[in-house]
């Protein structure tokens, strides 16, 4: 199981800026190891964000997203105290969900 994500959601007016830092290797499938064998691809494929249980954003990622991915987006109609959850799923079928409170 992967390390937890770091999520910050800050409300400003009627919207909130959400910053997520995930912990993932994001192997592109292009790299070769010391012996010259290709390192198999292993990256986050799907990211879902939900506000108070309602899905607000879904994203598909390719292998070209950087290691330990960072994502920033803005949610409309979010206020302090709302629950924001982010879920990712990688190519090995591993998944992780973390939750933060909008402040």
């Amino acid at each position, binding site marked *: 199981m992967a390390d937890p994500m770091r999520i910050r959601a800050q409300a400003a007016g009627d*919207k909130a800026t959400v910053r997520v830092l995930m912990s993932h290797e994001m192997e*592109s499938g*292009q*790299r*070769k*190891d010391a012996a010259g064998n290709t*390192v198999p691809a292993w990256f986050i*494929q*799907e990211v879902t*964000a939900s*506000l108070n249980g*309602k*899905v*607000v*954003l*879904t*994203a*598909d*990622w*390719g*292998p*070209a*997203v*950087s*290691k330990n*991915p*960072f*994502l*920033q*987006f*803005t*949610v*409309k*109609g979010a206020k302090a105290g709302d629950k924001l959850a982010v879920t990712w799923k990688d190519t090995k079928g591993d998944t992780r969900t973390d939750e933060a409170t909008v402040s």
Partner: protein
Amino acid sequence: MQTRRDILKRSAIVAGMLAGTGLFPQYALAYNKSAFEAKSVADVLKALGSSAPTESKEVTISGPDIAENGAVVPLTASTTMAGVKQVLILVEKNPAALVARYDVTDSVEANFATRSKMGQSSDVYAVAITADGKAFFAKKEVKVTLGGCGG
């Protein structure tokens, strides 16, 4: 009468069928694999079922002019256009052009920032796809001093 061999054979067939149905739909439903394997910007849009893109001032891409480390290039794609359903971030000269695809819902602004890998200096694109399949783009050149894709 059923022999042991018959039963074994049948259970093997059933197991095969289960594996076939169980694994495949996962890809077919959500993740558009061909779009992420497409080499050029035009091929990506074709795989997503969109038309050829036109340049638009309402779409913006921002990132550094010169990226020292191609493994982490911060890119932001945003649009002020109404009725946008998807926002894409693409790097033209990467082994596969599409970096990320975001579904825009009513409760999220069409403004996304991600860090991306870049193999070499290239044009980067932000593409906004509207509900009727029209695509609009903005591009910017990013120079990379150290590539981040190979090894």
